[in-house]
């Protein structure tokens, strides 16, 4: 029993070590590995960023994203309204 318990304890410890060292996101020193596609880990969580952007780049990206979002919304609204206009034309004719 005692050796078994000791063995279990050793196995548990080995498992914990394995989990830390085989994490595909981090190397042995805790830095991001290339297998992680360069994604950062901040406080143990993936940030989703492959590069570190400065404030100007973040602001520019936000503006572009907003512009694309509005463009998509406008496109959907236009398609909807054109469809309604076309349908009403067909119905009236």
């Amino acid at each position, binding site marked *: 029993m005692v050796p078994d318990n000791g063995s279990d304890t050793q196995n548990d410890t080995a498992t914990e070590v394995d989990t830390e060292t085989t994490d595909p996101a981090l190397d042995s*020193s805790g830095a991001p590995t290339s297998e992680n596609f360069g994604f950062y880990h901040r406080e143990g969580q993936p940030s989703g960023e492959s590069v570190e952007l400065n404030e100007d780049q973040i602001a520019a990206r936000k503006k572009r994203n907003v512009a694309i979002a509005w463009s998509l919304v406008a496109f959907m609204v236009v*398609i909807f309204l054109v469809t309604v206009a076309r349908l009403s034309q067909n119905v009236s004719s």
Partner: protein
Amino acid sequence: MNQTTNSSVHRAEGEAVSTASPRDYFDLMKPRVMTLVVFTAFAGLIAAPTDVDPFLALISIISLAIGAGAAGALNMAYDADIDATMKRTQKRPVPRGAVSISNAYGMGLVASILSVLMMALAANYLAAGLLAFSIFFYAVIYTMILKRSTPQNIVIGGAAGAFPPMIGWVIATGEISLDAVILFMIIFLWTPPHSWALALYKSGDYAAANVPMMPVAKGAKSTRLQILLYSIVLVIFAGAPVLTGLGGLVYAATSLGGGALFLLLAVRIYKSRAGEAGSAEEGALYAVRAGDKAARDLFAFSIGYLTVLFAALIVEHAFGAYWAVPGVNG
């Protein structure tokens, strides 16, 4: 240590990330060209003898503007090397480094597809087909093939810019008629003297970029003669709408007065030594050396001439100012 190294690498990569604003992408679409496209297309739409739903007409014109802008973006993507060399175009978004070539291509292709789809939905398949063809003609035939290979680039490529009034007409009627072809031909014939006048006083720019524009390939004297010849044909042809009844008194008077001034400026260029002084010192569109003023004046006036010509059609057909010309279409 590794983390520090990786951070440095990622920070370095981050420096290459775009800071382009939506305005940079809008500039890719050549807004000034879009304005002229919208204006001439609107004239074609208004002059057509068929009423069209105002909302669908608006969406169709917007589609056309987006399509023209998409062609402009594709042009800027392909011509990034030329634009970087020429003073006049160095500040465009791609050579300035604000927008990457691949992003310009991406935007151009997406906008092309969406604009043609919208045109097909809002107008008709013929208008959508013409829009698709004009984008293809400008981006592929003119930009990728003709521009770098022949001094006739602008003559043949000018067809791309001549489509908008025809498309406007087709949006309303669903068919291509003689009047639509006449509107097409007016812009087609207007393009060479307009573009060559600019090329005359920016010839150094084109030569530096190895673009075989007429003044670079055939010389200034030959270009001045061809400007005069094309101007004569243009001014005569601009009277054609009066003969078919498309243009009334207002158009006839505008065409006559504007045409006379156009010819006067073309003769002035022919007699000048424009294009022989080399390139302008400044990169601005209207910056010019003393000897090239005649070319700059015709370039500037040609824009006004086309605008007034199509404005006359709009005034006649949209505001009830159409009076038939006695003895011609009366």
